[in-house]
């Protein structure tokens, strides 16, 4: 009995098409597994492939390289001890435009905005590193190039890709 031959009774079969369907089905399974593995690796956010770190002079930033729209995630800015009692962090315009800030810890003393972004001023201790955590979620899909500049320091640049 040739199982791969098409029968015409009681139903009209097309085993050539059926075999192709099975091949597409198998390929589809591999795609689904690949998506799950990619998800574990963090390509779709929140995993090893997504953990980003940028450093420039006294400033270092930890962030998620891959984000998903509306998902809340932290941007952690660590700054070396400041010379004065205040420290300033300037965030470029794309960060302000593409992300909605849910909370800033600690709360800034002052904030101001200009064409080159938002400037946040925090109280600082001269003898200790300062950590500022901004919880934000993106409402914008695609790539955002962000620059964070501490007062008087070199800017740290990084990018975040936001999935829909």
């Amino acid at each position, binding site marked *: 009995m040739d199982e791969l031959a098409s029968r015409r009774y009681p139903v009209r079969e097309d085993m050539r098409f059926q075999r192709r369907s*099975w091949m597409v089905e198998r390929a589809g399974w591999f795609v689904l597994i690949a998506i799950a593995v990619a998800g574990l690796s963090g390509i779709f956010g929140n995993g090893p492939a997504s953990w980003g770190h940028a450093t420039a002079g006294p400033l270092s930033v930890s962030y998620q390289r891959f984000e998903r729209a509306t998902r809340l995630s932290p941007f952690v800015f660590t700054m070396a001890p400041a010379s004065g009692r205040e420290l300033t962090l300037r965030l470029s315009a794309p960060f302000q435009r593409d992300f909605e800030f849910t909370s800033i810890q600690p709360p800034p003393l002052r904030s101001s905005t200009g064409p080159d972004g938002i400037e946040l001023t925090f109280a600082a201790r001269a003898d200790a590193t300062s950590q500022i955590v901004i919880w934000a979620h993106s409402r914008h899909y695609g790539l955002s190039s962000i620059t964070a500049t501490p007062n008087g320091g070199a800017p740290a640049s990084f990018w975040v890709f936001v999935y829909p």
Partner: protein
Amino acid sequence: MDSVIKATVVYFTLWAIIRVSGRRTLGEMTAFDFVLFMIISGSTQRAITGQDYSLTNALLLVATFVALDIGLSIVELKSSLMRRILNAMPMILVENGSLMSDRMRRARITEDNVLASARRLNGLERIDQIKFAILEASGEITIVPAEQAGPAEPMEATSR
């Protein structure tokens, strides 16, 4: 605009995933499969609606889904190739009492699945009582009994 795009992407992605998962999943739905489908619908519903719970958005989504469904049914009517791609084809699993094991293995159907359908639909007990078992495009297994197959033999009474 994005509601229509999201609905279209979700419609075709879900269709592709369900199609790739094979007919077995749809036709022979177990209690766990049902739970799985509930989870799938819950996950996609949140992604489609987002934080927009307005009536306009709901109507827009429903209109898009129904329009896509009507569109595909028209495409199916016009093209036999599309009908096969969208809905799969019926396939014989048992022919004159013989299991077509290679087909069954590829379609992920076991002898038990065929026998369960034979018992449920026709009261048959053995494969040799089946003339044809057909895996329909819907995923169900239909049974054509062999001509000589009479009613199932009554079970012997057992004394205790």
